[in-house]
């Protein structure tokens, strides 16, 4: 694994954030299985190194846009468990007062412009956020997360063209987890994903999305260059989702084998790999790591408890926030 100049605290922060994502998802999945969560949700487990490697290269004022599989991005960009679980359960204290839910969770305090239930739906938004940075002269960079499946949406090519023409500080981060829903990437993506970006004059890189340091090191470089006006950039991050497409997708053998899942989980898990590296490099001891894990676990359990007992928004909120200047749209 590539060694970098980041210091111990940064390494531990990356580890903690990956564990926080995994733990968040385990709890969310349990809430679903226990029929305590409304609707469905998409688990990020297995892909933690992507969100963390990238978001740890960003400032709070940098922006991200996220996807239907958005919990990982949200945590990685700095969100708190309590407001997240409240949102997943439709409670008033959620980031979006329960109005958005898992597929629309946003955390503007940390620059997360929101998950999106339209595949590819946030590609324009991310590019527009970069447009703002350029127009207002801030040096913020925006990262646009999307999946391999989303590369089929024409919107991507429209906005990459403009981002390239206008040199916008945006990084397109394609999380290639091998599948879109129940279909293998090869069946829905002709040619080469990175070549598509390059054809628009955009520098593109393919990177091991299970290696948090590799992701982080590369992203740091690109972010620095984007801040200087050398963007846009494109990243294809090779990764894997451990769960089904959504929590209800249990029988997966008709589209992928148990062996394949096992191989990724056992041999390429981003947390296990990074943990091993931290220990072998003497950055943390097994005990310290276990303590961190336990702390995160407890944090999550408390947040879940809190959220389960938190109150729903008052029904009078139903016609609030339709328009920013009209308190109740239907009054």
């Amino acid at each position, binding site marked *: 694994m590539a060694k970098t100049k980041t210091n111990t605290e940064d390494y531990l922060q990356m580890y903690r954030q990956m564990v926080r994502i995994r733990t968040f998802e385990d709890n969310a999945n349990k809430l679903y299985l226990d029929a305590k969560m409304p609707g469905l949700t998409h688990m990020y487990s297995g892909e933690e190194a992507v969100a963390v490697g990238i978001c740890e290269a960003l400032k709070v004022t940098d922006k991200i846009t996220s996807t239907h599989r958005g919990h990982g991005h949200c945590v990685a960009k700095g969100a708190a468990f309590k407001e997240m679980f409240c949102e997943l359960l439709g409670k008033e204290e959620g980031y979006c007062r329960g109005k958005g839910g898992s597929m629309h969770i946003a955390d503007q305090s940390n620059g997360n412009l929101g998950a999106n239930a339209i*595949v590819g739906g946030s590609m324009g938004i991310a590019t527009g956020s970069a447009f703002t940075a350029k127009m207002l002269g801030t040096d913020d960079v925006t990262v646009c997360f999307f999946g391999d499946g989303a590369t089929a949406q024409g919107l991507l090519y429209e906005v990459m063209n403009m981002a390239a023409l206008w040199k916008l500080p945006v990084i397109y981060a394609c999380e290639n987890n091998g599948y879109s829903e129940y279909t293998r990437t090869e069946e829905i993506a002709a040619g080469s994903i990175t070549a598509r970006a390059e054809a628009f004059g955009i520098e593109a890189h393919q990177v091991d999305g299970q290696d948090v340091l590799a992701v982080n090191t590369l992203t740091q470089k690109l972010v620095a260059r984007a801040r200087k006006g050398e963007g846009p950039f494109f990243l294809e991050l090779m990764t894997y989702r451990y769960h089904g497409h959504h929590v209800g997708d249990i029988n997966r053998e008709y589209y992928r084998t148990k062996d394949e899942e096992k191989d990724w989980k056992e041999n390429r898990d981003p947390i296990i790999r990074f943990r091993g590296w931290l220990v072998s490099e003497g950055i943390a001891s097994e005990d310290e790591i276990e303590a961190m894990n336990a702390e995160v676990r407890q944090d999550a359990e408390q947040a879940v408890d809190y959220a389960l007992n938190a109150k729903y928004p008052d*029904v009078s909120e*139903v016609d609030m926030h339709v328009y920013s200047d009209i308190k109740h749209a239907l009054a």
Partner: protein
Amino acid sequence: MREITLSQAVNEALAEEMRRDERVFIIGEDVAEAGTPFKVLAGLVEEFGTGRVVDTPIAEPGFMGIAVGAAMTGTRPVVDLMFGDFIYLIMDQLCNQAAKTHYMSGGKLNVPLVLRTNLGATRRSAAQHSQSLQALVAHIPGLKVAMPSSAYEAKGLMKTAIRDDNPVVIFEDKLMYQDKAPVPEEEYLIPFGEANIKREGTDITLIGTSSMVQVAEKAAEILAREGIEAEVIDPRTIVPLDEATLLKSVRKTSRAIVIDEGHQSYGVTAEIASRINEKAFYHLDAPVLRMGAMDVPVPFSPALEDVTVPTPEGVAENARRLMSGEMIHAA
């Protein structure tokens, strides 16, 4: 008569028509092995192969456009749009191309295409996966719009749609896929533009579309217990609209409520109410009432979502008011 689910009814309709006519094929995301997330198409790829049950990348404008071109040149595509909310993505291909081609070519080109999609909230799927967008397409000349209210209609209308030489949009209620209804073994078709009187009555006419037919029927049951005899009518297609049957009923009952799950303002209920007002004005004892979904994006939180759609109790309450001569809203 045997009972089958709405999902099975659609599946049967497709299978029968694909057997009858080799030019019929299905195109959309995860329609083949996965049979769509709602599993409606399960088994079809086994019978008809991947040449006629065609999995696409996540590119709605693209595969809709391909379907339009395929339809123009001699095949009969059934486009599977996973969620009705994605109709926004294909509006150009549907409304600028498919809907207008026959007219713009002076009748020389046809677009025999079926767009199957869905509607319906209260599935905790939030604002981008819960919309009922039938009003948008009903507004566009050149499109026909069918809204099946049970497995029986779903099968009969689908078969008619596939044999129609014009573009037809069918909205299935995604909450009804597992609902069973009697469906004959023998082949049948339901002609477009023929409303169905679901229940006869003399006091008030309840006109419901799709999901709202059940709501109207339940309201009628409540009202019957109170001695109010409601007539329940299902237009089955909103384009063409069977005005004659609606007007006949309203001329008899002198009162009407129109119920549809799309947003109320500038929605389907406005058109139906307007036609009744215009053409049966002198028979009306009270204004025609409209009940659509609340004019708010669909909220995720169950506490809020449930109040956004018409309910049997709400319909019954409005019916009582109309019956009691209460001059609603009138100054």
